[in-house]
């Protein structure tokens, strides 16, 4: 099966062939590199921008205004912070012009820890991005969802922030993307650029790719359970699923929800699950103060208080200025499998 980087590449190929995507660009996005995570290798509308994030977001807005359909990349989300007021502007363009203009643009950016990226290649962006109204914000945890969410993003009329959990970009999927070949090695041969000289290389795209779309605002139950609900997305999602699987052996039945879409998000799915289990743990790795999970906790308290058997919990990244390079520092800064397992076990056993 394809990994997430390959899935993104195939979705972008489909989008530039069939969905009107005109410009896939950013720093090192075009040839020869095709993206520092290989997500844009071999695509026909790619180009390299100056090393100027404000220029990148601004250009995407302008291209969208003039009828293009851009997919811009910020190489690491740590470098998106100097564009915040442009993100705000893109988010308010439809609203502040009373619907006169709208911006069909996608911004992709790798987020989170997991590659020992130290202080400027490990940050998360979901907490900040969900503060900026007028955008749709998504974050896949599997290659198939990455493909499907990106297809939807490239059909949107509004700005979409597509957050790529960098720890999962190289992880192979368990579900087949419609059209991808049976054999991983065959896929790699078709669409992965060779090492060394690539000037003569051209990808051979799988013929059967299609507009497989994952709708925005729809989460997914990845594991059913009865005693508590775990809601996560991105890098921590597979860890939550793994923890739930391990704890099943101890008789703890945890339901795991992959939110996938942060704005809009699938409140109905969370609500139904929490009403069933009475306990909920929200897990993500952004810093915990004014974290998106805090919003979900607040809403749970306000709307589902009388269904709860225990306080809703949030497990998130420590409120630190950065993530240190050392393995010990990174592991201590953001939720790991052990932290999640402990948090689930503790919540499952919590009594008044």
């Amino acid at each position, binding site marked *: 099966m394809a990994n997430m980087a390959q899935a993104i590449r195939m979705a972008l190929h489909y989008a530039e062939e069939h969905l009107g995507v005109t410009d896939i660009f950013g720093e090192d996005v075009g040839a020869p590199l095709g993206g520092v995570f290989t997500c844009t290798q071999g695509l026909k509308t790619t180009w390299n921008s100056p090393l*100027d994030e404000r220029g990148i977001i*601004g250009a995407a*807005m*302008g*291209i*969208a*205004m003039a009828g293009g359909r851009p997919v811009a990349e910020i190489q690491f989300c740590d470098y998106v912070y100097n564009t915040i007021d442009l993100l705000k502007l893109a988010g308010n363009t439809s*609203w502040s012009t009373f619907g*006169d203009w709208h911006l069909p643009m996608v911004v992709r950016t790798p987020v989170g820890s997991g590659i020992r990226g130290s202080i400027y290649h490990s940050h998360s962006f979901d907490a900040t991005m969900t503060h900026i109204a007028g955008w749709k914000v998504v974050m896949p945890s599997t290659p198939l969802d990455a493909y499907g969410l990106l297809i939807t993003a490239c059909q949107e009329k509004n700005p979409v922030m597509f957050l790529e959990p960098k720890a999962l970009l190289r992880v192979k999927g368990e579900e087949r993307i419609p059209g991808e070949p049976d054999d991983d090695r065959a896929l790699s041969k078709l669409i992965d650029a060779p090492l060394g000289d690539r000037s003569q290389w051209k990808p051979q795209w799988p013929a059967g790719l299609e507009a497989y779309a994952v709708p925005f605002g729809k989460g997914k139950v990845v594991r059913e359970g009865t005693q508590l609900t775990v809601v996560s997305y991105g890098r921590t999602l597979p860890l939550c699923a793994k923890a739930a699987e391990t704890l099943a052996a101890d008789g703890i039945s945890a339901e795991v929800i992959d939110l996938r879409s942060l704005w809009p998000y699938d409140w109905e799915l969370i609500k139904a699950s929490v009403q069933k289990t009475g306990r909920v743990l929200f897990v993500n790795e952004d810093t915990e103060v004014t974290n998106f999970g805090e919003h979900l906790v607040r809403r749970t308290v306000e709307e589902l208080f009388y269904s709860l058997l225990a306080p809703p919990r949030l497990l998130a990244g420590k409120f630190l200025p950065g993530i240190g390079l050392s393995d010990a520092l990174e592991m201590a800064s953001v939720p790991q499998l052990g932290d999640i397992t402990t948090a689930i076990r503790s919540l499952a056993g919590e009594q008044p």
Partner: protein
Amino acid sequence: MSRPRLIKESSEASAPLERELLVRLHDLMVKTRVLEERLIQMYKQGHGYFWIGGPGEEAFNVSLGLLMKKGQGPDFDYLHAHYRQSGTLLALGEEPISSLRQMKNTATDPYSGGRNFAGHYSARRLNVAPVSSPIEVQYAIAPGTAMVQKRHGGEGITIVTGGDAGTAEGDFASCLVWSSRPANPLPLLIIVTNNKWGISTSAEGQHGEQRISDRGKAFGIRSKTINGNDAVEAYTELREAMAYVRTERKPFLLEANVSRLYGHSSASGANYVGNEVDCLKDFEAKLEKDGVLTREQMDALRNGYTEEMAAAARLVRDEPQPDPESIWKHIYAEDK
């Protein structure tokens, strides 16, 4: 409204302007000045929370609007304006009452539905990108529309304007960099209207380059500083710069020295500043001297517009404010 025909469709900056065009320029400059003065008056009478605009920039801004290739889409000129350009919008054919509605933040405000300040225009049907309060962002966005136009072919260009103070922001540098890359130069007219102020900070406290247009030289961008207070010079220099961008498909940096006749905004009182050149007064003296218009004709024109805008302001005063429920409209393109 058709674009006025010139005596010689040449790129010579010195080509004289025909009478019809001078009269048209004057008419729109007066209309703009009266509009701005009406907006200020509305503010002072409590019919609006904030005023910002461009009295003092009429000669340049009206010329710009008259010279734009007007329409929607990449075949036509895009304008990424700032908040001092009512003259450009009126020259493009906008009705002054629309500006009054935005000043009074009525539900009928066609630019923002009562959401944004005066002078914060948006008109997709005219390729006028939304004006926003940050003084620099338009310089980062403009290369995007220019890129589409370059690829699209044809004659459409992108025009971006901002003030001298805004050039301190990084987005101005982004604009110079992105428009002049040898691999993809862009049909982008980069304009700085230099009024020598950044709110209350004088030019001496802002930047040290002799001319802002000199910054274009390092990028190989054709650049020029002009007297934007002279209507004929502004028109002819803009015409030449636009012809260059249109045909060469390369950027041009044009710095226009202009005045700021009522200060930065209502935050600084919006009172008439007596010690700056008034482009309208100068132009009227010239028109009178050259026998193009008489003082009586010009006074009559001004009185006519004053009455027209007073009547429009009375009309707007009674129009409804936005429905509180309207806050939820247009967050997304589909939220009609």
